[in-house]
């Protein structure tokens, strides 16, 4: 059992059909065009010193530790912001580079408290690592110059502290808030030496911050640090687990001291969250060891009896015998099972297995039925399966996104962050919802259309959109030809083209201005020329 180490490639992966081959410290490496020299170097097994770069954020070029030399080029460009090019010969080590890196670290440390041994990040600090890597041995500026050592710590957030005295102003927190979470709560205040991370307002708690913790994770020092780590120290091993708070299914590393959680860190390999989390998954795990938590099985014969602690054997035996008794008295169908939408797929699978194999009936369901049954029915009739046809990653390839009756920023925040990333890149958005949900307008995200339909008129509005697509000849004819049953499609097309399905006709039902529906339908339909359209309901 050890801490799970994740490799930081420094800059995000790039995809490109074109590959470029270059040489880094004599090693040949081939990477997609657009890849940074820093990442190419990592692929070649060469670590370039860095502080402001991390691979879930776009390169920034502020720390100047990752400078390299490129044969035939002037100067010492930063490897994080310089794209790899075919035929490049890159040197990551030279006496000149070593001197400059040491010089940068000397500047950093001239404005940093020298309390490593009592620091919460001791041994888990990139600044400390880099001081070691570059061989910093003295700080010739002394420590009596201008500094931030007296800067006041912000303890307002219940989960983490912000200690500006330790800040190196790499902006990783600011960028994580912008790029990963999309809340834009943080900024750099002031300029030059006075530059400081700021949450605006009085403090972190008083700000737009939603406590997702992306900034804490991004911080290379102890400036932003979980209070649990400050109190308990660092974990000695970690375990990969899945968050049960909502249906997104974020992967986490539970960082542990023995059987005590010290902190929860989203797992980079998580297919749903790719290293991001929301406030609940990251910080709201106090229940794990809460005194109210039931740790031993209890039974009671009737509701008026007090609970009685028993062994697992007795509890399971009692439940089984009661199920049998009810079935004997009232028939095999008298019992059943239901799972929560917060159960994992595996848990839900096991429950239905128990119901079918042990209860010998089909009385099994999941609470997702409440919201998901209409879509499930529709999907099953159309595609033969009631599961969604898209995975979360597909949002990255969507050019028009339709959100119907869902409120991702509230209900599935980690997915919402990813959707917002795509929207900020320029994807278009149609929100069909009676509520003015966050996505309609929030920081750097604005829906092209919000169709605030009256509750219960989903079918009418979808039909109206389809009506516009059909009657304005916006259908992707070839797509239909290849994939639809000809006769069934003709019947649907004739039906949908009827005047009673027009936006104008359904306006009195839905309350949505016909012109908006038409415009939204046109946007949706013409997106066929773009990469893809995804509907999230």
């Amino acid at each position, binding site marked *: 059992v050890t801490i799970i180490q994740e490799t930081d490639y420094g800059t995000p992966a790039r995809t490109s059909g074109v590959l470029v081959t270059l040489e880094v410290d004599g090693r040949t490496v081939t990477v997609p065009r657009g890849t940074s020299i820093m990442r190419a170097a990592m692929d070649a097994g060469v670590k370039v010193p860095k502080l402001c770069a991390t691979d879930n954020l776009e*390169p*920034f*070029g*502020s*720390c*100047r530790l990752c*400078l390299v030399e490129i044969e035939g080029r002037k*100067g*010492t460009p*930063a490897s994080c*912001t*310089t*794209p790899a090019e075919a035929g490049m010969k890159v040197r990551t080590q030279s006496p*000149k580079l070593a*001197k*400059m890196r040491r*010089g*940068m670290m000397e*500047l*950093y440390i*001239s*404005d940093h408290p020298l309390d490593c041994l009592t620091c919460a990040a001791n041994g888990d600090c990139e600044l400390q690592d880099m001081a070691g890597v570059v061989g910093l041995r003295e700080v*010739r*500026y002394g420590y009596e*110059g*201008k500094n931030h050592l007296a800067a006041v710590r912000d303890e307002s957030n219940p989960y983490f502290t912000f200690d500006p005295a330790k800040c*190196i*102003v790499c*902006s990783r927190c600011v960028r994580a808030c912008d790029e990963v979470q999309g809340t834009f709560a943080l*900024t*750099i205040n*002031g*300029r*030059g*030496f*006075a*530059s400081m991370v700021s949450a605006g307002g009085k403090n972190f708690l008083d700000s737009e911050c939603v406590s997702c913790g992306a900034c804490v994770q991004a911080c290379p020092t102890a400036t932003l640090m979980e209070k649990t780590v400050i109190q308990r120290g660092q974990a000695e091993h970690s375990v990969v687990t899945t968050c049960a708070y909502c249906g997104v299914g974020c992967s986490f590393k539970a960082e542990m001291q023995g059987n005590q959680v010290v902190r929860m860190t989203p797992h980079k390999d998580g297919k749903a969250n790719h290293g991001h989390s929301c406030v609940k998954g990251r910080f709201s795990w106090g229940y794990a060891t809460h005194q109210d938590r039931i740790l031993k099985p209890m039974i009671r014969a009737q509701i008026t009896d007090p609970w009685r602690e028993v062994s697992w054997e007795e509890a399971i035996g009692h439940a089984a015998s009661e199920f049998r008794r009810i079935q004997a008295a009232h028939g095999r169908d008298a019992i059943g099972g239901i799972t929560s939408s917060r159960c994992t797929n595996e848990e839900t699978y096991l429950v239905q297995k128990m119901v079918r194999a042990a209860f010998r009936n089909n009385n099994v369901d999941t609470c997702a039925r409440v919201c998901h049954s209409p879509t499930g029915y529709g999907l099953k009739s159309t595609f033969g399966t009631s599961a969604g046809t898209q995975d979360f990653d597909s949002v990255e390839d969507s050019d028009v996104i339709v959100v119907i009756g869902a409120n991702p920023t509230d209900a599935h925040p980690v997915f919402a962050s990813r959707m917002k990333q795509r929207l900020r890149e320029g994807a278009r958005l149609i929100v069909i919802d009676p509520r003015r949900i966050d996505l309609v307008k929030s920081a750097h995200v604005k829906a092209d259309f919000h169709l605030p339909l009256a509750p219960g008129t989903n079918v009418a509005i979808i039909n109206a959109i389809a009506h516009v697509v059909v009657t304005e000849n916006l259908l992707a004819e070839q797509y239909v030809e290849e994939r639809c049953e000809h006769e069934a499609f003709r019947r649907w097309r004739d039906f949908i083209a009827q005047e009673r399905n027009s936006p104008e006709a359904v306006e009195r039902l839905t309350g949505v201005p016909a012109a908006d529906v038409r415009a939204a339908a046109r946007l949706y339909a013409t997106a066929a020329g773009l990469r893809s359209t995804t509907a999230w309901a």
Partner: protein
Amino acid sequence: VRGKVYIPRDAAAVSVGADAVARAIGDQLLSKRAETALVRNGSRGLFWLEPLVEVETRQGRIAYGPVTVDAVPGLFDGGFLEGNTHPLYLGLTEEIPYLKRQQRLTFARCGVTDPLSLTDYVSHGGYRGLERALTMAPATMVEEVIGSGLRGRGGAGFPTGIKWRTVLQAPAAEKYIVCNADEGDSGTYADRMIMEGDPFVLIEGMTIAALAVGASRGYIYLRSEYPNALLALQQAIAIAYAAGYLGQSVAGSGKAFDLEVRLGAGSYICGEETALLESLEGKRGQVRPKPPLPAIEGLFAKPTVVNNVISLATVPIILEKGAAFYRDFGVGRSRGTLTIQLAGNIRHGGLVETAFGMTLREAVYDFGGGTASGRPLRAVQVGGPLGAYFPESLLDTPLDYEAFAERKGLLGHGGVVVFDDTVDLARQARFAMEFCAMESCGKCTPCRIGSTRGVEVIDKIIANQGRDKNLQLLDDLCELLQDGSLCALGGLTPNPVLSALQHFPEDFHRVEARQ
């Protein structure tokens, strides 16, 4: 109307009383029921003579200056409307040696015309460049600018036409023309003068740039410290729109170009082109790494031409008279004319536009007349706060990009600041670091922390604390700034520091000498 009286509206002239003089002259004209029109022109750039009042006479324009309110009645009594002599009489304006010796191409109209009269502009050769450009293919226009040898007058000296060609060849649905009017270098005012004195030439230059690269929208990023320029630009843009020189169909060409002015918020670093673009996008004015070049991914990630005011204002004459006409001025790889701005401790401060190649000595003595204090000249800083301090022994350096670079100097935006022998170059070196510390955007480590440490280290040197070690440290710090900074602010800050150390070492040994 019989005749005209010209009184500059230029902020420099106004700062020494031009508005009051204009009111006094206006009152006199009214009371005398004279049929003379009062025109508020741009400045000729002879600042020691401001307010410089000109009278249109049969022989030509006669200049008087510096005119005070008190002198106005006397001027009228002496018959200055007829061009009569007077103690303030300077003769024919064009014959004043300071002007006569210049080769004004970019500033040809500045101070001559009414800046907000489109008729004046056109009758003095305005919009002929655009007219000719409209007969050319975009690539031909770009070739013309490349052929002229025009280099960026903002300071970097990058060939303007090459930048345009990159933007022209970048495929995009939208492209932008951005004019960098964030003239922040100490001792510079050429941008301000032309924006106040001949705003249409900038509008025309930007319009040609747009046609050449296929842009349909332009922005002038203007520093907020230039309220008079803002007013002049806004009025000129409105006039150009009304006359069809801007808008959906520029001069009836069917090609659209929209132009607006955006104000900065008092930051020097927003004159750095990538920080400027960030600011223009409504973000914190912070430097972006390059690549990508703004010409490929600039404003709102679209291909963008970012050019200085003077570069763009020089485009019309190049397009009007052809590449060869412009290229024939200048020396070596510095073609055309340079507008230097004489400032600091100088007798005749003002704007001088001549072909590249004049020496710094000619500029400072023949035009500037030496120091204002009359004391011996000790140092000249060319190129703004990031330029090197040159001693007397380097005054014969010709004003051209390469000659300055060879001597570890910088032409920059053409600011020339003169110091007499009372200057302390150790203090000036400290100021360079302090300036960097004040204006640093705070993004990269060497500039954010290093500039502040630089001030401290120089303070220790001045106080003779561990001088040798600190001189070594200062050297290392300068190397770090020069080679490790993200942009030119940190990268060039060592220029004034190292030049002060190199040429004026005695100023750093002062304490020791005294002991």
